[in-house]
């Protein structure tokens, strides 16, 4: 079915509630609906299996307009249908759609806190990523909230975490984090255990939330490119690529073919480094430190290649609006090919290790199994979804940039357990290596950059790229100025957390680190989640009370 047909189907499905149809871009359909009709409209798309809910973008149209907007983006291949709900600034209420689409909870809580759009029927009420004592009725992403106001804000930065302790005869709450030796980034988990078996899982993120989306609204387009590169330290290139793609779409600038090929090449190398890093972390969590050390040693090869091509090891800054900075000459091409030859042999070796090593298989085979329908329901993305047999890969569904010319093949597994996630990622690397070779052999000639205007024409666009962890979603809006009006980023880790929380319940506590590692979480880039699955009421101790108890205990 072509993109146009898909959009027509969506329009027919949404016809009963449609107030106004907008076609902002060729592949996008915006349908304005009343807030009351949101639930029905969303379930119409959901029941017809028209794509999946990719993100919810909140927007403040300004004090004069007196309006807020919430955009519910549904993606189906390259086609995107957005349900646009217009709301008054005071007393904005939308119904929840989390009852039909569970991952919507995360997105809804984000717009609730950041824009003050009340979500009717949302089960959880505590904060996602704002401090617990953040004043009510202050919404940091509204346009009238200034940086000065944020600086003057007197918040304690202390969170009221559910305290550890005994909650039943054999039931305990085991807290992990926010700072914990087993976590590489800040996050808080609390697992209720009955003996060794996890009975409930809770999590709270937001410790590394820096308000990047708000910060973009006071920086130029070029400055923002480097800001977005720093959203994630591992997939920095894909973030910058997504942002530049969006800005180029708005400016209607055609990026030279050579620049697109180099972008895909760097993205490919980044995937290799990201997945090898992940393999090491997972092996380490499983106690297989030999695999950890050797995979990280081999990762150095790709890090050195990136350094050689771009000049930096982590935030490569290979992108520039309208193209790329780094040329791939004969010298670089030769070095990459040599590196790939070595890496391919190593990746094949690791593939054999993860599928045959008896000890490692004990920790991965049949653990944390997610079936395909479950993966669909949780809205999983990237390798986590593909390990369950869900064919979800933006590079294949909606090829962008050089992926049209140098396609990659889809890798899926059916088991959905941790082993399948290892296999999917490693096989994906072999596919990436193959694609990189074909780019190097057929590199198009031409310039590296196209001229970009400093002022980006007014409009709004969506850029989706496949990051190593899954689909990365950028929504960019310009009003024709030198700075963006709104940029919304939805990172893949945000959608994948459910896999940990749902699957931890019923497993041994010792499997939890592996489950967390299994989805390749990136805390800092998604920092905005809380999910509570503990229905039991238990007594919570505050830090203060715990401290007092400690003093009392030791003075006895």
């Amino acid at each position, binding site marked *: 079915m072509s993109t146009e047909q898909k959009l027509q189907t969506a329009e027919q499905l949404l016809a009963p509630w449609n107030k106004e149809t907008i076609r902002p871009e060729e592949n996008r359909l915006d349908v304005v609906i009343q807030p009351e009709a949101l639930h029905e409209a969303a379930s119409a798309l959901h029941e017809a299996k028209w794509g999946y809910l990719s993100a919810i973008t909140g927007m403040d149209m300004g004090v004069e307009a007196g309006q807020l907007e919430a955009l519910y983006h549904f993606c189906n291949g390259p086609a995107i249908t957005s349900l646009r709900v217009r709301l008054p600034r005071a007393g904005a209420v939308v119904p929840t759609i989390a009852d039909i689409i569970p991952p919507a909870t995360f997105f809804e809580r984000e717009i609730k806190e950041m824009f003050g759009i009340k979500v009717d029927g949302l089960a959880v009420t505590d904060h996602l990523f704002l401090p617990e004592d953040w004043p009510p009725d202050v919404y940091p992403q509204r346009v009238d909230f200034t940086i000065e106001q944020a600086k003057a804000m007197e918040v304690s930065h202390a969170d009221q975490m559910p305290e550890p302790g005994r909650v039943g005869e054999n039931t305990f709450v085991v807290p992990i984090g926010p700072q914990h030796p087993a976590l590489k980034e800040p996050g808080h988990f609390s697992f209720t255990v009955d003996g060794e078996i996890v009975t409930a899982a809770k999590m709270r993120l937001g410790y590394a939330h820096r308000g990047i989306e708000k910060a973009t609204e006071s*920086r*130029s387009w*070029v*400055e*923002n*490119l*480097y*800001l977005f*590169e*720093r959203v994630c330290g591992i997939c920095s290139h894909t973030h910058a690529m997504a942002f530049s793609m969006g800005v180029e779409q708005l400016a209607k600038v055609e990026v030279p073919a050579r620049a697109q090929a180099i972008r895909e090449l760097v993205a490919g190398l980044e995937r290799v480094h990201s997945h090898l890093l992940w393999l090491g972390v997972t092996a380490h969590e499983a106690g297989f430190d*030999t*695999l950890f050390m*050797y995979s990280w*040693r081999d990762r150095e090869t790709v890090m*050195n290649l990136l*350094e*050689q*091509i*771009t*000049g*930096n090891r982590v*935030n490569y*800054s290979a992108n*520039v609006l309208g193209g790329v*900075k*780094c040329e791939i000459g004969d010298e670089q091409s030769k070095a990459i090919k040599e590196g790939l030859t070595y890496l391919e042999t190593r990746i094949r*070796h690791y593939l*054999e*290790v993860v599928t*045959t*090593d*008896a*000890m*490692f*298989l004990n920790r991965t085979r049949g653990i944390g199994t997610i079936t395909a329908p479950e993966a669909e329901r949780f809205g999983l993305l990237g390798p986590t979804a593909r390990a369950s047999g869900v064919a979800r890969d933006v590079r294949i569904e909606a090829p962008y940039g050089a992926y049209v010319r140098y396609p990659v093949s889809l890798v899926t597994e059916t088991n959905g357990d941790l082993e399948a996630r290892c296999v999917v990622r490693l096989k994906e690397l072999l596919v990436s290596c193959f694609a990189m070779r074909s780019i190097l052999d057929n590199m198009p000639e031409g310039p590296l950059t196209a001229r970009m205007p400093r002022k980006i024409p007014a409009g709004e666009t969506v850029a989706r790229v496949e990051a190593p962890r899954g689909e990365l979603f950028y929504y960019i809006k310009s009003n024709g100025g030198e700075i963006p009006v709104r940029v919304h980023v939805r990172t893949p880790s945000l959608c994948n957390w459910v896999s940990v929380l749902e699957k931890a319940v019923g497993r041994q506590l010792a499997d939890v680190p592996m489950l967390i590692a299994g989805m390749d979480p990136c805390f800092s880039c998604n920092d905005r989640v809380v999910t509570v699955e503990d229905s039991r009421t238990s007594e919570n101790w505050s830090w203060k009370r715990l401290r007092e108890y400690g003093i009392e205990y030791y003075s006895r």
Partner: protein
Amino acid sequence: MKFGTMFTDILASFFKKNSTQLYPFEKNPTPERFRGNLYYDPAKCTGCCLCVKDCPSKAIELVTIDRAAKRFVLKYHMDRCVYCGQCALNCRFKCMGMSNKDWEHAALNKEEFLVYYGKEEDVREMLENISKPPAESEHK
């Protein structure tokens, strides 16, 4: 199902030399494109300030003493720099770039990270101007 699948890797490593280096006695050569510290040549500069305009981390400031005589001083805040190379890309006269030789960053205080590029007398003049209260606005 096998045991010791990585045993051969370990065994092979016994016969390899250490991969760790004795830094600072032994240094890894940096690649040609490595983005180290910024360098600047006032002789080629026209004072257009395109580099300053696009710097995402506000790491560079250009002080113009005399535009016609090409007397410029570039204040470079090494500690703020994110080494993206946008300034060098923006420069139409190739008066700045990122060095692949000079990249080691360690200092006992923050002041050492502020570097002045320019002719010696220009830098001296600029610093004297800063210490005088009325000329305060000039270095902004």
